[in-house]
């Protein structure tokens, strides 16, 4: 570790300042205290663990599907159960794993650390968003185990999911799951934007923001602008089903394509919401393990932003088969191909960084190399589906299933496992075993390709998506059996990863503050970070704060350390602008989440629950915002008004 820049802001045991901060920032203890926690590292860790559990659950569902599809006309499960399972797999992976893990979990934990803040903006909202998310997930699985699992696909197209063809409550459950996850994602999006805009360490001007933070803030903006699409779509669906509105009823002026437009307005950016965090993880890992500043920082930032914009011009390419006018077909084809340009730019910059750097091949780097190998194939098949005529052949076939698994697993899950290997020491203070890590990497890489590559061919050979079985004479049996075998390897690989984590937690090697000699601020504090993150708020002198730190890099002093005070800086140049206080831990966000959950679930069964259920929510929110006397008194005497 001789190489890693030792940070001037590392807390030391027994330091009186450290003890003072610890006293102020310590999370409440005890069973009830658990529900009061508001620190971003606590909530972030919970997000990660929860999302990973959902990842495992959805993975097991995938296994059941592979089992059913391993034999033609198999009767291992009927269509009714199969439809629930593939819908659950898709919805859980998208709404309970991918977005919460890639965006919420990682940004909640790392963005404040990387911008040198002591907590995320709006910590109580942050806690609320987590509880809402986890309760939504629990609700979904409760319904699934009571045979009320959604069975209309993760996209729930009307009219199949509509009032006339979706009896029972299954589609309503899906619509409300969306509501849960979208609210939590939107909350985190706002927190991340504000944290990055206002809570950056002095000196971290726009052109010095770490790429990871850039990516997460662009993702946050995409969430803010994309989610309303699915909010409106799922609300209309729920209204059609429960209160007899007519949005999607062609007989009285409703329209089934309206749903698809709204859904894909969200659904396509969704892919980039999952993928952009992946790319910036890659950027972070490549920087550290190539031992040089990233090549083409500006180009990469602009590419990420461009991706964020173009992603909103693609939604119709999910609807080429619906008979939309050729004019708009052409436009969306062009846009869909255009998005390859910023992505290509990033890939070239990464390759350039690696080629011109000194590459240290640790497991995080291996996962990144796997990312290149797999994701680029996904990007390439993306061109096939962007071209209208070809898309008309492969759309809704297993070719597309292969395509988006290459994109999402390649573009998100490979970087994610890299991120686990890379940041696990920071989060837990323990190193993971490189040996086991390599095993699970190679098993995953091989298993993944065995599982998903044959799907390209299966699709071209006429296997549609979402079929619970296929005919023996269609020449698909062998392909499907190969795929099912691949699943076993994937399963073992993930299992070995869990073993690795478990062993490391039990008696893993202690992690130093900066095991990889990284340059961003999260490495400036101890592993795991203390409850106050940094003993002194750092200042920044370059893109890689620790690598570029001046010999005597100043630290921030003069904050009132008797409260959870924080520093706000200007958006562009990050000059100090003012101070403010984080709210203290409290149980109210949890209670508000409970009230919200009751309201959401109630509305599935009785529309009136919305109005009645709003009352307890209002009460909890008011209690949440109501200030205590002593806080008010303390602040009043030190109020210093902004000059206007």
């Amino acid at each position, binding site marked *: 570790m001789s190489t890693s820049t030792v940070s001037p802001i590392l807390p030391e045991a027994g330091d009186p300042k450290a003890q003072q901060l610890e006293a102020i920032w310590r999370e409440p203890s005890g069973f009830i205290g658990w529900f009061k926690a508001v620190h971003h590292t606590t909530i972030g860790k919970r997000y990660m663990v929860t999302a990973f559990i959902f990842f495992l659950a959805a993975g097991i569902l995938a296994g059941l599907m592979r089992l059913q599809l391993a034999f033609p006309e198999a009767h291992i499960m009927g269509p009714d159960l199969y439809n629930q399972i593939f819908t659950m797999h898709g919805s859980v992976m998208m709404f309970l794993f991918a977005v919460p893990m890639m965006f919420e979990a990682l940004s909640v934990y790392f963005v404040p650390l990387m911008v040198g803040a002591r907590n995320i903006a709006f910590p109580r909202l942050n806690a609320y968003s987590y509880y809402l998310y986890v309760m939504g997930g629990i609700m979904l699985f409760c319904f699934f185990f*009571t*045979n*009320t699992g959604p069975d209309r696909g993760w996209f729930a197209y009307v009219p199949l999911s509509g009032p006339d063809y979706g009896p029972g409550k299954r589609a309503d459950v899906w619509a409300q799951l969306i509501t849960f996850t979208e609210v939590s994602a939107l909350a985190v999006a706002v927190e991340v934007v504000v944290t990055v805009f206002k809570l950056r360490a002095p000196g971290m001007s726009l052109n010095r923001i770490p790429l990871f933070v850039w990516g997460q803030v662009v993702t946050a903006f995409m969430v803010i602008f994309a989610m309303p699409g699915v909010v409106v779509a799922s609300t209309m669906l729920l209204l059609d089903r429960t209160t*007899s509105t007519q949005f999607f009823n062609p007989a009285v002026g409703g329209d089934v394509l309206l749903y698809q437009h709204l859904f894909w307005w969200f659904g396509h950016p969704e892919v980039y919401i999952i993928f952009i965090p992946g790319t910036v993880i890659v950027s972070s890992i490549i920087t550290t393990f190539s031992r040089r500043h990233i090549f083409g920082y500006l180009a990469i930032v602009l590419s990420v932003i461009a991706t964020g914009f173009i992603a909103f011009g693609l939604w119709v390419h999910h609807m080429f088969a619906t008979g939309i006018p050729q004019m708009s077909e052409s436009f969306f084809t062009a846009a869909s191909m255009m998005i390859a340009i910023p992505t290509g730019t990033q890939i070239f910059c990464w390759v350039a960084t690696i080629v011109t750097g000194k590459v240290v091949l640790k497991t995080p780097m291996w996962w990144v190399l796997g990312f290149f190998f797999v994701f680029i194939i996904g990007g390439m098949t993306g061109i096939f589906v962007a071209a209208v005529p070809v898309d008309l052949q492969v759309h809704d076939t297993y070719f597309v299933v292969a395509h988006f698994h290459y994109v999402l697993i390649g573009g998100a899950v490979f970087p994610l496992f890299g991120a686990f290997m890379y940041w696990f020491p920071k989060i837990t203070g323990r190193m993971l075993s490189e040996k086991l890590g390599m095993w699970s990497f190679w098993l995953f890489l091989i298993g993944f390709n065995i599982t998903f590559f044959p799907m390209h061919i299966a699709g071209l050979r006429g296997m549609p998506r979402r079929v619970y079985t296929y005919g023996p004479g269609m020449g698909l049996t062998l392909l499907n059996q190969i795929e099912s075998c691949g699943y076993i390897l994937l399963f073992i690989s993930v299992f070995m990863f869990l073993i690795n984590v478990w062993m490391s937690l039990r008696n893993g090697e202690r992690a130093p503050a900066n095991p990889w000699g990284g340059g961003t601020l999260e490495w400036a504090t101890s592993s795991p970070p203390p409850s106050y993150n940094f003993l002194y708020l750092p200042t920044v002198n370059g893109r890689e704060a620790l690598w570029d730190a001046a010999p005597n890099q100043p630290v921030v002093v003069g904050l009132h350390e008797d409260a959870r005070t924080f520093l706000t800086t200007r958006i562009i140049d990050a000059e100090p602008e003012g101070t403010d206080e984080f709210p203290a831990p409290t149980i109210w966000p949890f209670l508000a989440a409970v009230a919200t959950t009751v309201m959401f679930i109630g509305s599935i069964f009785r529309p009136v629950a919305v109005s009645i259920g709003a009352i307890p929510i209002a009460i909890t929110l008011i209690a949440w915002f109501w200030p205590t006397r002593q806080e008010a008194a303390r602040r009043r005497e030190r109020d210093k008004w902004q000059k206007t």
Partner: protein
Amino acid sequence: MRRHLLILSSIAAVLTVAGCKREHRVFDPGATGAQVANGVQLTDVHVGQVAHPPSAYSQYSDSAYAVGEGKRLYSAYNCVGCHANGGGGIGPPLMDAVWIYGSKPEQIFSTIVQGRPNGMPSFAGKIPDYQVWELVAYVRSMSGQLPSDIAPSRSDTMPTRNAEQATKKEHPSDEYQQPVQQEKSR
């Protein structure tokens, strides 16, 4: 702590029962359900007399899927032709509290199977028992006899009436105490 577990598990149990019954989907009704002899009514059914065990009915009236099927069959078998969407026409309305030949499931069953004077044809042999029961369940939902989380939502057609799930319960005069109501009060 143990008390928490107890409460949680009991809630889960309730959910399971409710959920499974409501969402249960029987595709293959089995030989008895599929038979078209339409039970014993062919020989002796008198209005008001219970000819079938209520269970045979409740297994359909508790399943949103079965009631939905009933709704589909209602138009597929052209009940709409005479009864319209419950408003009545050539045949009597089905969405009110007036039931000429009785509102009990078994009575509706035999009305469908045997037909009634002045126009209602007999579907004996033409509709399998289980589909008749599905029709019965649906017909009862038209006057709000079924819980709103089982009764169908609006259909993708011109709205001619409230969605069954939004129809308020009519109280047929001949129903003092009968199984469905006990279920509702449960």
